[in-house]
Structure formats: structure tokens, C-alpha cells
């Protein structure tokens, strides 16, 4: 299968949004490709993403405490996969790739003419070295490629790199091609980096990315454009400031005043606090996963292990109202099939949701189901839900949930717990209901697998890796196992079938859709990802998407 060259199929589109007559402000791009227009270089952007820590000025791209400031900026993966646009692929360090017919091996052609920021050429040998480094140092293999995904070998020959897997591995493409940063062998094979690649600070990172670290102190990281970047003309922006915000309050204030242009966290009451402050302030927060109620399915929890009770809860919730009141309308309502819309519309079966009766709240049906389960005005049902203290939007959402459940005769107690206590209870299954948002992936399959696959569960009292409600259904397991070995339409069908199981068994109850928080200022900067051109995940904490956005935005004042 040849690599789709999204973003290279050019079609004119006046995405610049300015009245400038200069042709350089016209974005030439496909409707959903990474913009590749021709702009003058110059300008500066300030990222306002609350990392909740001062910078340690380490840039080891495998250290999960710092990789969000390293990958995308300095280090790049082989291929960029866009979650928001049906997994559209943009080739980066690999110019193309081919899968073997059985899906067990993939051959990447490594791009010619790419240089590391110290001037040395980047070759297939570096790619081979990187993946074998993960094998040699398991602490770096954060996506468990060698242990979980069944990677067997990675070998380079000429400008090709072949990865051999034990089983069909297309489903892991997102992780190994899109999320593993390629590092230079000539740096990482000597000295401290070679001796302790896992704990090495890498304070002067050498990468292929569009930016290099110019200056770092605990308060701020300053990146400057890489003058020898392999994409001609890019990046347009020459300086990136990344201040270390400890909390949302100061960060959001700096966004509102325009001191920072790129926001990535929840702003309560965003219209008055941010949007009304300037016509240049915009927001677009695309949904990527579901904020979900996890009922405890273990028989030790008599109520939530009853199907009727879970169905009643799912029926009783008016999700649109929860999204509107709890999240101020900034998150859309979720649906019981567990497919995040509109992001994954292709997989969504609205007719099935309607025929199962989950398209709108139905309090009468909910009361009926509860009565069938033996609860009613005489035997009121008392349930508690755990959430994290300090997540104020979740508190507000759960207050609405509580109200709506009270209407059908369920008395819900909201337990606000400290993060550590909450984690402990969530993982070990010590709850009636838990409010939690799982990580997503390039298709709904990833979230469904986390929530529903029985191998991700564990007995009550032991930490489950991601199936916190302890759902186990051989039929669903079989579907999840089948997904990786089939293609295209068959995958869509499988997701729809799992969606049916979501409505039949109600193993988890999606409530609202978790979004990628994104606020942007267009006074000087243009070329941001938008609803009409979602060319990358827009929040600055997404890797490698942050690098794609940074090399696509440009400064209006720098255009002659």
C-alpha cells in the first residue's frame, strides 16, 4: 500500500483570511492537508500551555516528564498521522512505506537530504539505531513495541528500514511511525547518552525538527527556527516562546490579554473571559475521546452489576444538558455507542443509537428499568461516583448528573478525591461509579479496546490497566482481536458492532466528549488548524502535532 500524499495534492484555497493582496498570504493546501503555502519567514509565537511545572531544561524525547517540549519541536517521527482527519498521513522522515501482504512487516523508505541540526546527514541507520535503542533499554519503549506489539527486528539496508512483527501490526502504526522520535546515532552512541539513554538529560538536543532550543531557564524555553530544516521554506515562524505556567489562572489571563497566542487548557466562561476581549481571539476544541461514567460490573457491587440499573442511568442522562451546563457548551454531548462525533463520524451509526432508544433521554423508561431491578420509591437506590478534586468542570457536570438521576429515583453522592486516592480507587475497582476520560487514538477502536478488552481488566483489588469497569465479553474480545487484521470498511463494521455491544451491555456510559482545548489569536499569526482545516490536533501538548502546527503557522507582520 503506497503512502497517501495528503497535503501535496494542491488546490487553491484562500485560507489566509486577510485582505492582503500579496499572493504569499494565500494558503495553497488541500481542504484538510497540512498547509504548504509560501510565506516570508519571521515573527514569534508564545505558547500558553499549563504544564504545571517549571522547566527542568532536559529534552530527552523518551522522558515522559519532558517529551512534550522535545518531540515535535526538535525530534520528528517517521510519519505524521492526523487523528482529526481520518488518519490522514503526512510523510516526515520516511518519504514512503509499504506493508507486506500479511501485514507483519513494513518497509520504510527514509527521506534523502535530511540533516541533523549539527549538520550531519540523517540516514536509515539512525532509524534502525533508534528502534533498537528501545529494545536495548526497555524503559524507553514507552509504547511497548518490543513487548506488547510483537516487534521482532528492525534492520536498515541502503535507504530502507524494515520492521518485522510477530503478528499483523497495522494497528500499531500510529505508535511506531507517528510517536517514536528518531534520534541521531552519532550523538546517542557515545558518552553519557550511550551509557544511560534513559536518564540522560539531553540538554542540547540534536534533532531533525523545525526548531532548535536556543535558551532555557526554569521559567521559559525559547526555540528558534532550524535554518537547515529539510522542508523548504519552513518553518515560517522564527521564534517560539514556551513559558512554564503552573496553573490555569495566570495562563488564561495571559491568553485574554494577548500576551500569549496559543492556549491549550479549559477557560471557564470563555465568551466573556476570552472571546469578547478581542475579535482576534478564537477557539476551536475538537473532541477526541469520551468523559465516561464507569459502572463497577463486579458482582460485589450489587446495583451497578445489574444491567437494568446501568441501562436506567444511560437512559436518564440528558447528555446535551450536562455538556451545556457542566462544560459551558465547550464539550459536545457523547453517545452510548462510544464513538466520538464528529471526529469519527465514519464509524458512527446514529440509526442504531436511535433504535436502541439512546438518542434522547427517557426518564419513564429509566424508572421502568429501575423498578424491574427492584428499586423504586420504597427501595431508593444509593450510588456514589468518584471524581478528582479540582476538576471544576467535572464537578459541575456531575452536579447535573446527580440532578438528572434524582429525577428517576437514584440518589447519587459525588466523592471529590485527591488525585492519588482517586487513581488508587479507579485502578483497583473500589467504586460504584467512576468519572474518567480514557486516552483516545486515531480511531474509536483504541478507546473501545482500553475500556472493553478483558485482558485490560483485573480482579477487584488489583490494578486494572484500563478496563476499570471490569467488563468481560468473549464476543467483544473476538471483535477487538479481529480489528487489527482487517482493512477499511471491515474495521468500520467492527466498531459499529462493538458500539452495539456498548448499548446492549452498557459496560461504560459516555457522558460528554473530551476535547483538545485550543484557543488561538490571529492578530499576527495565521495558518492555525481550524474546524475547516483540521490538519493536526491543535492543543500544544500533542506530539508530534505541535511540530506540524508550528511549521505551518506564519506571521502576518513578517509578510512584505
Amino acid at each position, binding site marked *: 500500500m503506497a503512502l497517501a500524499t495528503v497535503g501535496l495534492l494542491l488546490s487553491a484555497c484562500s485560507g489566509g483570511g486577510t485582505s492582503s493582496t500579496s499572493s504569499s498570504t494565500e494558503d495553497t493546501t488541500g481542504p484538510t492537508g497540512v498547509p504548504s503555502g509560501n510565506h516570508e519567514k519571521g515573527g514569534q509565537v508564545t505558547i500558553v500551555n499549563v504544564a*504545571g511545572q517549571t522547566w527542568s531544561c532536559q529534552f530527552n524525547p523518551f522522558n515522559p516528564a519532558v517529551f512534550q517540549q522535545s518531540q515535535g519541536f526538535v525530534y520528528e517521527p517517521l510519519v505524521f498521522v492526523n487523528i482529526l482527519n481520518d488518519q490522514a498521513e503526512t510523510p516526515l522522515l520516511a518519504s514512503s512505506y509499504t506493508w507486506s501482504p500479511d501485514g507483519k512487516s513494513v518497509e520504510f523508505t527514509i527521506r534523502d537530504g535530511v540533516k541533523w541540526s549539527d549538520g550531519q546527514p540523517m540516514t536509515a541507520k539512525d532509524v534502525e539505531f533508534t528502534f533498537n535503542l528501545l529494545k536495548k533499554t526497555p524503559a524507553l519503549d514507552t509504547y511497548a513495541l518490543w513487548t506488547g506489539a510483537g516487534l521482532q527486528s528492525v534492520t536498515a539496508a541502503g535507504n530502507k528500514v524494515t520492521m518485522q512483527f510477530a503478528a499483523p501490526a497495522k494497528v500499531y502504526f500510529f505508535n511506531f511511525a507517528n510517536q517514536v522520535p528518531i534520534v541521531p546515532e552519532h550523538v546517542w552512541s557515545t558518552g553519557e547518552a550511550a551509557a544511560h539513554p534513559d536518564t540522560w538529560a539531553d540538554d542540547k538536543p540534536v534533532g531533525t525538527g523545525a526548531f532548535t532550543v536556543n535558551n532555557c531557564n526554569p521559567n521559559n524555553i525559547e526555540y528558534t527556527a532550524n535554518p537547515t530544516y529539510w522542508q523548504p521554506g519552513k518553518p515560517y515562524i522564527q521564534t517560539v516562546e514556551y513559558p512554564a505556567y503552573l496553573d490555569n489562572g495566570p495562563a488564561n489571563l495571559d491568553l485574554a490579554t494577548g500576551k500569549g497566542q496559543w492556549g491549550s487548557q479549559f477557560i471557564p466562561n470563555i465568551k466573556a473571559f476570552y472571546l469578547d476581549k478581542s475579535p482576534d481571539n478564537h477557539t476551536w476544541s475538537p473532541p477526541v475521546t469520551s468523559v465516561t461514567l464507569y459502572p463497577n460490573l463486579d458482582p460485589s457491587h450489587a446495583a451497578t452489576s445489574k444491567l437494568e440499573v446501568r441501562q436506567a442511568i444511560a437512559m436518564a442522562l440528558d447528555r446535551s444538558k450536562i455538556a451545556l451546563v457542566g462544560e459551558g457548551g465547550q464539550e459536545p454531548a457523547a453517545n452510548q455507542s462510544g464513538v466520538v462525533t464528529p471526529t469519527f463520524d465514519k464509524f458512527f451509526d446514529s440509526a442504531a443509537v436511535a433504535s436502541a432508544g439512546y438518542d434522547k433521554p427517557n426518564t419513564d423508561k429509566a424508572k421502568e428499568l429501575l423498578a424491574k431491578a427492584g428499586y423504586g420509591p420504597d427501595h431508593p437506590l444509593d450510588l456514589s461516583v468518584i471524581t478528582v478534586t479540582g476538576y471544576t468542570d467535572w464537578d459541575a457536570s456531575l452536579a447535573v448528573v446527580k440532578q438528572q438521576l434524582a429525577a428517576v429515583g437514584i440518589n447519587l453522592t459525588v466523592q471529590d478525591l485527591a*488525585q492519588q486516592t482517586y487513581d488508587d480507587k479507579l485502578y483497583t475497582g473500589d467504586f460504584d461509579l467512576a468519572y474518567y476520560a480514557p486516552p483516545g487514538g486515531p480511531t474509536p477502536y483504541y478507546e473501545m479496546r482500553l475500556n472493553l478488552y478483558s485482558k485490560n481488566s483485573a480482579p477487584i483489588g488489583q490494578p486494572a490497566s484500563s478496563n476499570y469497569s471490569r467488563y468481560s465479553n468473549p464476543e467483544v474480545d473476538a471483535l477487538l482481536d479481529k480489528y487489527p487484521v482487517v482493512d477499511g470498511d471491515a474495521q468500520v463494521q467492527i466498531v459499529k458492532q462493538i458500539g452495539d455491544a456498548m448499548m446492549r451491555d452498557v459496560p461504560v456510559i459516555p457522558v460528554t466528549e473530551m476535547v483538545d482545548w485550543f484557543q488561538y489569536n490571529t492578530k499576527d499569526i495565521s495558518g492555525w488548524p481550524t474546524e475547516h482545516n483540521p490538519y493536526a490536533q491543535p492543543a500544544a501538548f500533542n506530539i508530534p502535532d505541535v511540530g506540524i502546527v508550528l511549521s505551518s503557522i506564519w506571521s502576518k507582520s513578517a509578510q512584505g
Partner: protein
Amino acid sequence: MRYLVRRLGFFVLTLWAALTLNFFIPRLMPGSPVDALRTRTHNRLSQDALEQLLASFGFKPNANLLQQYLDYLGDMFTGHWGVSIGASLGQPITQIIAQALPWTVGLVGVATVIAFVLGTLIGAVAGWRRGGVLDSILPTVFVITSALPYFWVALLLILFFSVWTGGWLPHDFNYDSTIVPGWTPEFIGSVLVHAILPAATIIVTAVGGWILTMRNNMIATLSEDYVRMARAKGLSDWKIMTGYAARNAILPNLSGFAMSLGFVVSGAILVEYVFNYPGLGYLLYNAVQNTDYPLMQVLFLLFTAAVLVAVLICDFAIVALDPRARATS
């Protein structure tokens, strides 16, 4: 002398007890560094890899607890403080502390001294002219402000002096990050401007206590015989107020001040948090959030040592100043 030796012995015993508690209490808290890291990375990464990574950075949850404790005691005294296993994963603790300590001591320390000096002055004058205009307004106002929560005062100040005035005074960070730190007037000016609002918050909420105690001490002292004697000698009011009354009234306040200097190091968590001020208080909050044992241990060590040393100096000072302390020992 025996008194001093006993004080020193007490100091060592307290330090050991505090160090022991500092080791065990964080480990009794729910949660683990692995869970915290897992949460911070949104459950996206492999649990095995995270555990191995933390192990590489020196987190050994399965080692013998007694051995860990003995190692810890040794490390605390030899300065082998290790690296963070929390939000600053891999950064040496000494470096983290060295970057944050000057800011906290500078901000909270200076603010505490200003609050003390200001409070004592106002208290002395108010006590001297009790019932006067000053006495009926200032103590009342500041006692009320000292009852207000830190963070609320901070938010009000930000609203008045930063938001409504279009950014008169900066509301976050300790200096303008576009300026390269150095002994330049530009940098020093930026640091001072950035300190105004957080320092004002601390002063406004702390000054009331000093005013009240100083005023009351002053009133008690003014009824002493030696003050009457000074009046009888015909000394000037100024001289009686400063040389006879305030000089004695300030003694109890001084020991309180020494104690509060000890607490400076622990920072003002909420003030640092609201103003995005990267000091020790914020570090402590973050270390607890992320179950960062090495960082927590060292921070607690610093806090206890600072308070204990302050108390010790205070004890010594009292011996030097007050003959009665020597007599009772």
C-alpha cells in the same frame, strides 16, 4: 552553659524525629510515583516502561524499608539528594532547590521583614496614642485584612492592578522572561515590579498580627513604673516612646519574628501558586501532587531545619537578652 547544651541536645533530637517523620509520612500517603506518572501521561504509555524508567532514576519501591530509611538519613546529611521522580523527572534535587530557594527567600523573606517593621511601627504609635485617630483606624483595618484568605487578596490585587488597569503590574512570573537574567538595572527592575503584587499580598495579610501584639505590649509597658519615672524626669515624648516603652514592648515580638523567619522557607504556597511564582511553596505542592519522594524529603528537611534553627537562635538570643531565662535554667 548547661542550658545551651540542653537546647542543642533538644535540637538534635527534634531534627532526628522530624527527619524520621518526613521519611515515613509521605510513604503512608495514598498513591505512588508510578501512578502519578501514569496519570500525567494520560495512561498512554506502557506501565512496565514507566516502572523501569523510575527505577533507572533511583525509585526502588521494593527495597527493604529499613535499608531505605538508613540510606535516606545518610543521604540527607551528606547532600546526596538524588533526582526528582515527579514533575521534573530526572532533574537533580539540588538544582531544583537552588533555582527556587532564592526567589522564595527574596519574596517571602523581604515581605515578612517589611510586614514586621511596618506592623511594629504602626503598633507602637497606635499604642502610644491609644484612642487616637490612628489607633481607631489602622489596627482595625489590618486585623480585618489579616483574617482574609491569602489567595483571595491575591486575586483582588490582580483584578485591581493588572486586569482593570490594563496590565499596570505583572500578575505572573518572577521576571519578564524575555530579559536575560543578570545584574543589569533592567533585570533587577523587572524582578522588583514582578514582586510588588505577591509581596503586597503577604504584607497586607501578615501586618495585622504584628500591629495588634505590638500595640497591646505597648499599652502594658506604658503603665510600668519606669515609664512613669521617665515622664517624671521630664523626658521628651519621642524619647519615652522609643527608648522606654517600644524598646521593651518589642521583646516578645522579636521571638515571634524569629519564628516567622523560620517559616519563610516554606514559602507561601497559595501566593506562589496564584502568581505563578516559581518558589519553594509551589515546589512543595507539586512534589506532593506527584508523589515525588526525593523532592518532598529535601523540602521537608529544609523547612524543619529552618524552623528549628530559628527557634534555636531565638533561645540563644533570649538567654543573652533576658537574665531571667538564665536564672530559671
